[in-house]
């Protein structure tokens, strides 16, 4: 069940990582090794095992649905790579 170069490029697109063909080949080889190691889990029968998502059991914590204003808008916006007034500016969204 080796991972193919096409799959690598597909996953890279899902992960929003641009990748050259040479990088994809190297990545394919490394992922193949790691995934082959990981698949040792297939040896375990886990049919009746309940999955764990958090190791320390706790209920869902609820909080009041109330507004806590954050006064320092500028502290956030100053980190923007590109801004226009109080907006983050990005390249065009609908591509050709």
């Amino acid at each position, binding site marked *: 069940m080796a*991972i193919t170069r096409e*799959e*690598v490029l597909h*996953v*890279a*697109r*899902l*992960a*929003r*990582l*641009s*990748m050259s063909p040479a990088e994809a080949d190297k*990545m394919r080889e*490394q*992922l193949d*090794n*790691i*995934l082959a*190691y*990981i*698949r*040792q*889990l*297939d040896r*375990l029968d*886990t049919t009746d*095992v*309940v*999955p*764990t*998502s*958090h*190791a*320390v059991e*706790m209920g869902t*914590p609820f*909080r009041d649905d109330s507004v806590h204003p*954050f006064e*320092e808008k500028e*502290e*956030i916006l*100053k*980190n*923007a*790579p*590109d801004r226009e007034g109080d907006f*983050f500016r*990005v*390249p*065009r*969204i*609908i*591509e*050709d």
Partner: protein
Amino acid sequence: MADIPVHEWTLLTAAKAVRDKKISSRELTRALLSRIERINPKINAYVTVLPEAAMREAEARDEEIARGIVRGPLHGVPVAIKDIFCTKGIRTTCASRILKDFDPPYDATVVERIRAAGAVLLGKQNMDEFAMGSSTETSCFGPVLNPWATDRIPGGSSGGTAAAVAAGTCFAGVGTDTGGSIRQPASLCGVVGMKPTYGRVSRYGMIAFASSLDQGGPIARTVPDAAVVLAAIAGYDRRDSTSVDIPVPDYVAATGRGVKGMRVGLPREYFTEGQDASVKAAVTKALTSLISLGAEGVEISLPHTGYALSTYYIIAPAEASSNLARYDGVRYGYRADGAKGLIEMMSRTRAEGFGEEVKRRVMIGTYALSAGYYDAYYGKAQKVRTLLRRDFNEAFARVDVILTPTAPTPAFRLGEKVDDPLTMYLSDIYTIPANLAGIPGISVPCGMSPDGLPIGAQLLGKHFDEESLLAAAAAIEREIPLRRVAPFEG
């Protein structure tokens, strides 16, 4: 005390000296800043040093002392933190190009709490990029060198913090541990490092890697020093929905409890043929010292141990791929120039902004969560995680703590494993299970290799029983006295 240089004092000694007005916070801070200036260019442990801000804080703490005000147990003591904790107005990078100029609009809870306890912040410490690594070689600022041998790595990902503490450039630091990132570098640098129970220390403002595994904790030169820092940062925080609302006990007192009658489990899966001889000998010595103080060694089995690494390398990358989706060049951080459209901008920003190890893990995680593979990988790993937890639950019905090596070998050479991801991952094989089970773990120095490299013993405990770990680790440290500041003068 007079004949020991200030930078070798324990944190508790320094804190008491400030409270007793034997030394000012300014004198302490100035001494450590000048040591950082001299030592840091050679080991690269800090990525940001804050000389002016630290001196201002020290001055304020001294004025408080003059007025009889003591903020808390760290009053006037200079410490530092891993560059993964957000600090308002101080750049926070996670050692990644993608965050190189990020200036957070708020402080992490850990930062608020160490300041509330009176600590002076010296700076921010180097780390593996986004905490992904075991050698601090994936940092965009270049690797950290081990102060015990500068051709060696310090471990990772909190390698900057461990190296800085071992080099006497701060009295203690706060790191984070997702699969061993506090304990493994502590072991390799000859200092004490503790990963608390998941939920003990707030993750608010701690840049996320794998949210169900990440936990902040102290790195210090002695167990009582680690205990006092843990006490300062632990506790419930409503801003972290996974932080647990139970009282914080007196951790410093716990270090004096002793180990009489304590049942110490020795999992046979952690003591195998072919193990590094010096590691095995040092951990055996730690066991012997606990037994000499009245503890009892009990052989146990954690049968699913061999599956922990695989489980971790599905769950951690899966969570990371989701957490790191936020680095898209829109709101903060690096943005690639000249892209024609939004998707191209994001894809190039991430390709140029992330290092190789981070990309590898984002790829593994995205693959493991993608359509058609979710059940086979992520779903499977979550089930095996249950089996690993069950192993520990069964063991802790018979024993109070578990003793193992922290890392399979002492510090390895720079560049030795950097091109072989799987071999690198194996250096966390003894520390990863605790993160998957959410249990606390501590690494305490217990010996030296024949070529003069530190070796640590790991103790694992029940959920929220940090006290037993501190008691046992402090006992080992009293029985096996070792030099804690590396004999490195640059």
